[in-house]
C-alpha cells in the first residue's frame, strides 16, 4: 500500500469533517467561504494525487488547475460576495 495515497485520503477526510463543522460558525459568509475553500482544496488534491495529474504533461495539469481556480473563484464571488 502507498503511504502517500493513504495520507492524502486522511487529509481529504479531515477537510471533509472540518467543512461539516464549519457550518456551526456564526458568520454565514465566513463559513461559506471556508467550506468552498476546503472543497476546492480537496478537488485539487484528488486531481493532482489520485488522478495523477501531477505527473501529467504541464498543459493537462494547468488546464485542470485553471478549472479549479476559475470555478472556485466564480462560485465564491456569486455565493459569498
Amino acid at each position, binding site marked *: 500500500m502507498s503511504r502517500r495515497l493513504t495520507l492524502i485520503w486522511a487529509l481529504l477526510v479531515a477537510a471533509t469533517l472540518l467543512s461539516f463543522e464549519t457550518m456551526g460558525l456564526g458568520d454565514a459568509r465566513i463559513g461559506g467561504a471556508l467550506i468552498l475553500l476546503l472543497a476546492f482544496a480537496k478537488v485539487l488534491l484528488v486531481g493532482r494525487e*489520485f488522478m495523477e495529474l501531477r505527473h501529467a504533461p504541464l498543459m493537462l495539469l494547468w488546464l485542470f488547475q485553471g478549472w479549479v481556480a476559475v470555478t472556485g473563484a466564480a462560485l465564491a464571488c456569486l455565493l459569498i460576495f
Partner: protein
Amino acid sequence: MNEEAIHPPRRAARGHVPGEEGVWVFIGGDLVAFAIFFMTYAVARRQEPALFDRAQALLDRGLGLLNTLLLLTSSLLVAQALAAVRRDDRRARPLLLGAMALGTGFVIVKACEYSAKIAQGFTLNSNDFSIFYYMFTGIHLVHVLIGLGVLAFAVSRFDNRGALRGGIGVIEGGGAFWHLVDLLWIILFALLYLV
C-alpha cells in the same frame, strides 16, 4: 515506499497521460458542463437566498457526509489498486472490488435519501432548489452507475490469480473517471448541503 514502483515512469521529457487520451477529452467536457451547472445554481441562489436556505435545511446532511466519505474511500482504493498493479501486487483486484462495494453503498444511501425526501413531500417540483437538487444529484448518480460499470470492466481484466491481462491503460483511464465522480460529488456536497 518505492516511489518508482508506485508512480508512472517519465515517458517523455515531462508527463504521462493516465489511460487513453479520449478519456481526458470526456473528463474535460464533463468538468466544463458541471462548471456551468454550478454557476447556474449560484446565480439562482442569489435571486432567492431565503428559499434556498429553507429548502437546503430540509436535506439530511449526515447522509451527504456519509456519501462523501464512501466516495473518498472508494477513490483511495482505486488509487491503491493502480499502485498495486504497477508493483505487480496481486491485491489490485480485491481493492477494485472494495471500491465497487463502497460505490454501491453510495447508490444505496442516495436511494434511501431520495425515498425519504419524496415521502416528506420534497419532490422535483417542490421549489427551485429541489429542481437543482434532483437534477444535479441525478446526473451525478448516472455518473456513479457508469463508473461502477467501468470498474467492473477493469476487474474483468484480471485472471483468477489476480494478474492483469493486457495493458494498464484500462485501470488508469477507469480510475481517472472514478476519481472524477468523487471530485464532482465533493463540490455538489459543499454547494447543495453546506454553503
